């Protein structure tokens, strides 16, 4: 009986096109029109400015806890930018920049984080799943969507987002395995932001890369500089085109960094150093992309100011949303309300005062705020 060495091919590519010093690999530079590059930058800046605004809104008690995006704009936008409207996006809970790009109105997301389920309702023509909070559990959904699209013969690609921590979950491995066996058009985008709350990547996995985990399932995996929007775009373009051509799924690992808190209830000074954060701030995805656009003479004037105005208008719309009507909690449990639930609804209707008239203000924040959330409103 022999004892022989099998030699599975084991190579993981790393892709970087525009580094943090502004060096550009022109051979790899994607052929994007100036208009597209501007749109990409605009979406990244919107992600950043909205994120900063939302942190302030949370501190003021105007929205609840949320997971900020800061630092991950290139990972999100470089990938989401490759999708068409009929493709599907499956987010986890930190994809604000990409979700806005996909068509979620800003005020709707604010409403969601202010505790209104209405904010999680995608529009009828929107091929986006709502935010999924239990880590990695959305990944099998993406595979199922892709299977269904393939079954119906629809020309559709599914892109699913998750973090480095998610790669320890069983659902991640099951989803990659099913995707490989079924050969479905799905692109898995891991935003490896180095920290799963307080646990660093080296305590999350003993693998050298996350990308290599794809190889065990017979899929291509690639690691990219997740703060380089051109590299993320190039890798995602390739993966989406491959999926669309019927050549199966891909795992993309975007090496990036969460510059802010895990959520607004988190204090990262407890587990990581200022020096580490400062080092990653040098690699800020916005800085290098801005310099690149400047060099190509593509930078729009006053883009930040116009985005801030857009955000301010959305905040105004959000704050003039009607107060929550408690009775609507019964509206979407079943297609048809069972008798006992109908009785529970009627009991509530008799108990609760009529919904207050529209005052242009949101209801007061929850009486038991998360850590870091003030009780009072401004």
């Amino acid at each position: 009986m022999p004892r022989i060495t099998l030699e599975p091919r084991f190579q993981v590519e790393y892709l970087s096109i525009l580094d943090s010093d502004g060096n550009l690999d022109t051979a790899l530079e994607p052929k994007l029109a100036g208009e597209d590059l501007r749109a990409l930058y605009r979406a990244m800046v919107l992600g950043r400015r909205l994120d900063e605004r939302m942190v302030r809104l949370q501190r003021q008690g105007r929205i609840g806890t949320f997971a900020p995006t800061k630092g991950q704009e290139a990972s999100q936008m470089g990938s989401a930018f490759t999708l068409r409207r009929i493709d599907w996006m499956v987010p986890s809970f930190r994809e604000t920049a990409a979700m806005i790009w996909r068509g979620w109105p800003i005020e709707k997301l604010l409403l969601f984080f202010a505790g209104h389920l209405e904010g999680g309702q995608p529009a009828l023509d929107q091929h986006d799943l709502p935010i999924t909070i239990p880590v990695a559990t959305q990944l099998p959904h993406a595979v199922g969507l892709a299977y269904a699209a393939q079954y119906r013969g629809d020309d559709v690609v599914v892109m699913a987002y998750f973090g480095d921590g998610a790669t320890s979950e069983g659902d991640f491995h099951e989803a990659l395995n099913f995707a490989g066996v079924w050969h479905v058009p799905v692109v898995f985008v891991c935003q490896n932001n180095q920290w799963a709350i307080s646990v660093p990547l080296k305590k999350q996995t003993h693998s050298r890369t996350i990308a290599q985990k794809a190889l065990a399932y017979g899929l291509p995996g690639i690691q990219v500089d997740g703060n380089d929007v051109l590299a993320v775009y190039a890798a995602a373009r390739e993966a989406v085109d491959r999926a669309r051509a019927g050549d199966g799924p891909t795992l993309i690992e975007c090496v990036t960094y969460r510059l802010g808190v895990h959520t607004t209830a988190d204090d990262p000074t407890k587990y990581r150093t200022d020096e580490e954060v400062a080092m990653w701030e040098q690699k800020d995805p916005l800085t290098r992309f801005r310099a690149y656009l400047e060099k190509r003479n593509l930078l729009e004037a006053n883009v930040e100011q116009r985005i801030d105005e857009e955000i301010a208008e959305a905040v105004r719309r959000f704050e003039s949303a009607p107060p929550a009507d408690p009775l609507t909690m019964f509206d979407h449990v079943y297609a048809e309300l069972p008798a006992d639930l109908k009785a529970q609804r009627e009991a509530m209707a008799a108990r609760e005062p009529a919904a207050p008239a529209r005052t242009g203000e949101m209801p007061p924040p929850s009486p038991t705020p998360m850590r870091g959330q003030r009780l009072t409103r401004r």
Partner: protein
Amino acid sequence: MPKLNMVKALNLALFQAMERDADVLVLGEDVGVDGGVFRVTDDLQRKFGSQRVIDSPLAEAAIIGTAVGMALYGLKPVCEIQFSGFAFQCFHQIENHCARYRARSQGRFHIPMVIRMPYGGSVRALEHHSESEEQFYAHIPGLKMVIPSGPRNARALLAAAISDPDPVIFFEAKALYHAAKEEVPEESETVPLGRAQVAREGSALTLIAYGAMVRVALEAADVLRDEDGVDAEVIDLLTISPLDRDALVTSVKKTGRAVVVHEAPRSFGPGAEIAASIMDGAFLSLEAPVRRVAAHDVPFVGFAREKANIPDVPRVVAAARATLAF
């Protein structure tokens, strides 16, 4: 009308649903070539192909998780979990996603899927192959929980579950798969979910059961008639959740006495909810406390001791006599 056992009756429901609607898919472990370990999906893959009858990799969470994705896309997946004891490995997908997607998306999405699972004891099986876990699913808002008691209603309920727009957990008693044959009409037949049936009319006492325990309750009613001269009414719930409270209340208003029988452990089980519903709706008609005959609050006991744990006819008869004598 052909006489079918429950396996064949369920197979007929699946076959007809798939023939009628190309959106209906079957997936699970060994459901294709093998036709399922109990043969409920026998021959379906040959008739409908491996794209519609999918032999999935062995992973419960991804079976349910990918089916959620298919349902979000508009398909109607019918999943098989090989034994209900393995469903804890997909419980998070069921609770977090099947049950909630309609609410989470405020009606933009719904999950028209069915999860079939063999459940229950009396088949000399190992751990995780003999338990009754309906209470976990019945407790979750957004799910429906259905348990047929024989071939004809199994077929009609499965057909109704597949056409239902909401997620349905469909338990099939292993003890009933080959227990009896019934006439099952060839033309399609459904019974509405959420409706109990009077399996036997009576006036002295109401026995409430579902699944394999309906047979036990009916046999206990025979004993009560033959030995005590007492006419017991037997209610077959068919749907555990949403519970048909009206049927329970109507019966107990007539009889004044009730005994609930189930295979799940007693504490916090369906019997408690049934007893509370009877108290709510028929308190002034009650002549005695509502009793529960259930499995004991112990983990799996092994089939050598199973008979002492799962309700049987003597235990139901004894509980009925105590209730009548109260």
